[in-house]
């Protein structure tokens, strides 16, 4: 094995997913070296190709940045799974794969004739990972979920917002990646077991349950102390100041958090030790926390005079934890990420060349390479059908004529 081989080489994964929570785990496995085959159909491409980009779907389906980023390093296969021929080919692939990842509602796979039992008949070692809103059973199993719904029900939204105000939505859509990450780990655990024992597994990951795990501190606090945590802006139970403060310029902010008296004195010195910093109401950690509203207001009057990057550097040099709040336009040229080489610039035949974030783990100093992004709809039909499944040219041509496979979407019921 050469030094650059990625750890999951030799693992094959079928990706039957759409949007983000489902495609993410298989993208991670693809980054780490697995051969991941994304299955769409010309009748029903991944909707992430369309909803995340403006314009006529028939024109823009290869241009969606979120789709192209989330499906990097994957092969593209089309199969019409509403027809027996498509299902037969899918099962043939299952026989030659380690895992299937899917994120449709729990009814969809069985309706297509692709229940876990069918998959297991085809290959007892297969791992089927289902990523859903609420799980494979229970009274809500058929309910519809998107990221913000997982956040609302799990308790995350109850912890996200300004003190005493209503719930806000994470622009990040956190419950999708939260579920996606756990699905990646759980799939790899099941594949590890299957490789050792020959025994597959149905792995069941939900956005709701995944999201609850990431707010373990608040849920356990309730059980251990009876305290019900609520929205509290950026306040910390122990630290003050602890927040984001305005800096010079439009929508410019700097975070500052003070954990010790030493940091408080250093912050005071940075401000030129104005008289208010020596008042009794800010003298101790507890006093600062009690009077944090006044403290935050006074601090904001000072921070707003400075550039957020320069001020952060100055405070850091004095031993005070501080950092500018970075938005996408900052991050795309952030010197720290540039020094690390975090964004990889990758060409796409239609979408052009753009920066894509690396999987955030360096292996012996290198990020996993992003060899390509996309894939284009059905771009690897020939490779998968002939090299993996052994179909001849005539058979592939017939599948194309029958619209079991193809490379152009049939929008509008073609």
């Amino acid at each position, binding site marked *: *094995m050469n030094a650059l081989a990625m*750890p*999951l080489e030799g693992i094959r994964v079928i990706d039957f997913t759409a949007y983000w929570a489902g495609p993410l785990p298989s993208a991670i496995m693809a980054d780490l070296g697995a051969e991941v085959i994304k299955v769409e159909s010309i009748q029903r491409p991944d909707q992430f190709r369309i909803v995340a980009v*403006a314009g006529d779907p028939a024109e823009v389906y290869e241009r969606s*940045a979120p789709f192209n980023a989330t499906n990097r390093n994957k092969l593209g296969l089309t199969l019409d799974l509403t027809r027996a021929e498509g299902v037969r080919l899918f099962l043939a692939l299952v026989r030659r794969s380690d895992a299937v990842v899917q994120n449709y509602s729990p009814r969809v796979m069985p309706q297509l004739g692709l229940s876990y039992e069918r998959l297991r008949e085809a290959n007892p070692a297969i791992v089927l990972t289902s990523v859903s809103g609420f799980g494979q059973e229970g009274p809500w199993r058929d309910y*519809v*979920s998107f990221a913000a719904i997982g956040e*609302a*029900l*799990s*308790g995350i*939204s*109850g*912890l996200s917002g*300004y003190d005493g105000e209503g719930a*806000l*939505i994470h*622009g990040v859509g956190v419950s999708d990646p939260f579920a996606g990450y*756990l699905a990646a*780990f759980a799939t*790899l655990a099941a594949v*590890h*077991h299957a*490789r*050792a024992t020959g025994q597959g*597994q*149905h*792995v069941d*990951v939900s956005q709701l*349950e995944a999201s*609850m795990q*990431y707010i*373990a*501190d*608040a849920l356990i606090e309730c*059980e251990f102390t009876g*305290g019900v*945590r609520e929205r509290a802006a950026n306040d910390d139970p122990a630290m003050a100041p602890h927040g*984001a403060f*305005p800096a010079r310029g439009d*929508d410019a902010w*700097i*975070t500052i*958090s003070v954990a010790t008296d030493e940091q408080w004195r250093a912050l005071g010195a940075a401000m030129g030790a104005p008289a208010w910093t020596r008042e009794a109401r800010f003298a101790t950690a507890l006093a600062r926390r009690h009077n944090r509203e006044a403290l935050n207001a006074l601090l904001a009057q000072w921070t707003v005079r400075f550039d957020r990057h320069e001020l952060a550097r100055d405070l850091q040099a004095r*031993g005070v*934890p501080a*950092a500018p709040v*970075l938005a*996408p336009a900052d991050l795309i040229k952030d*010197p*720290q990420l*540039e020094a*690390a080489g*975090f964004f990889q610039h990758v060409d796409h035949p239609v979408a*052009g060349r*753009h*920066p894509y974030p690396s999987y*955030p*783990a360096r292996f*012996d100093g290198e990020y996993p390479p992003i060899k390509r992004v996309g894939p284009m709809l059905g771009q690897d039909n020939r490779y998968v059908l002939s090299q993996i499944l052994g179909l001849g040219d005539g058979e592939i041509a017939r599948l194309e004529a029958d619209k079991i496979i193809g490379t152009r979407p049939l929008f509008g019921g073609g």
Partner: protein
Amino acid sequence: MTDLLRDIRVVELSDGCAAAFCGRLFARCGADVVLVERPRGGSAVRWEPPFLDDQPGTERGGLFMFTAAGKRSMTLDTSHPDGATLLGRLLERADVLIDDRGAAADTGSPAKANPRLVHLVFRNFTPGGPYEKWLAGELQLAALGGWMAQLGEPRRTPLVSNSRTMTAFVPGVVGAIAALAAVRGARAGGRGRRIDVAAQEALLFTTRFNETFLSSTGIEIKRAGDRFTGWAAYRTFKAADGDVTAAAATDAQIEKLMELAGVAGDPRFATRKDRESRIDEFGVAVGKWIAAHSREHVFKVCQENRVPMGKVSRVDEVPEMEQVKARGFFEQVEHPVAGRRRMPGGPAKFGGEWPRVRRPPILGEHTAEILRGELGCSGEDVAALAAMGVI
């Protein structure tokens, strides 16, 4: 059968929640995870709130109890030469070293003793950049990792959620995935790897590829308060007893929502374009129906009609929700100090079952067992190590 990783041995040296959550994922799936702790006070995670009845103590930390479930605890002063030797021996037989304490410095290069070892290191920033030496708590990482710019009202203070684990666990799971993949690679005939995870980058990877989107479209996605910009029905609404969140994306879903709200056929909102150009009016019209009902009612009626809707739950309501109970997500853990406690489970169901329930270890509970049974120490050695304060 949920002990999927029972043939994997992990050694964990952790003071932070990222490394601790990483170790938890391995332990939950059946790996043997040995948590190496300082003889006095143990891992710093033991001192993270919340505490049982708000009283700090070695065996009273809720986050420790959550992250350490199923691990074994061994005390060892790794800065003492005998401690370093024993750590080295422990690593000779390990598959993974999870490390946020710079353990390599104590033992030389762990990879030399065991070429198959996967050495996973957690840091805040990748070395070599301008932030390398920066002090960073949760707020700084969330600010530099692109999260804060995505939560809050436009132009008002950017926010983090009021949960420390939400950001802390992200690098942990990112590292766990990488390490488990690397174990697979080593088992398939490769060698161990050194894996480095930086929290800033792990958080940024979790933000939906906004930089790629900006580069592709010129549009910068930023926080939009209680909604997604430009979407008529992807937002929160006020119900009679709190908030609900709608995530209606397709025309069919939005039209069904209008029907439920009694505004079906309203000419002001006939098409998607109409709704988006009168987005506030649309919110008022639909919001009137929602405001007259409870969260539970709105949630149920919408979902029974296939309209994506969620109720915003308080953390004390979460364990009581019917789906959460039906799935058995929370588990009862017996603990010598805390007694019988309800804890969150996870990470996933395998073959319809959650991983089996295991309690966290008492500080040093397994020290003697590991030294004598696995590292070849005599009873006399163990006594000497204890007398020297190494264990």
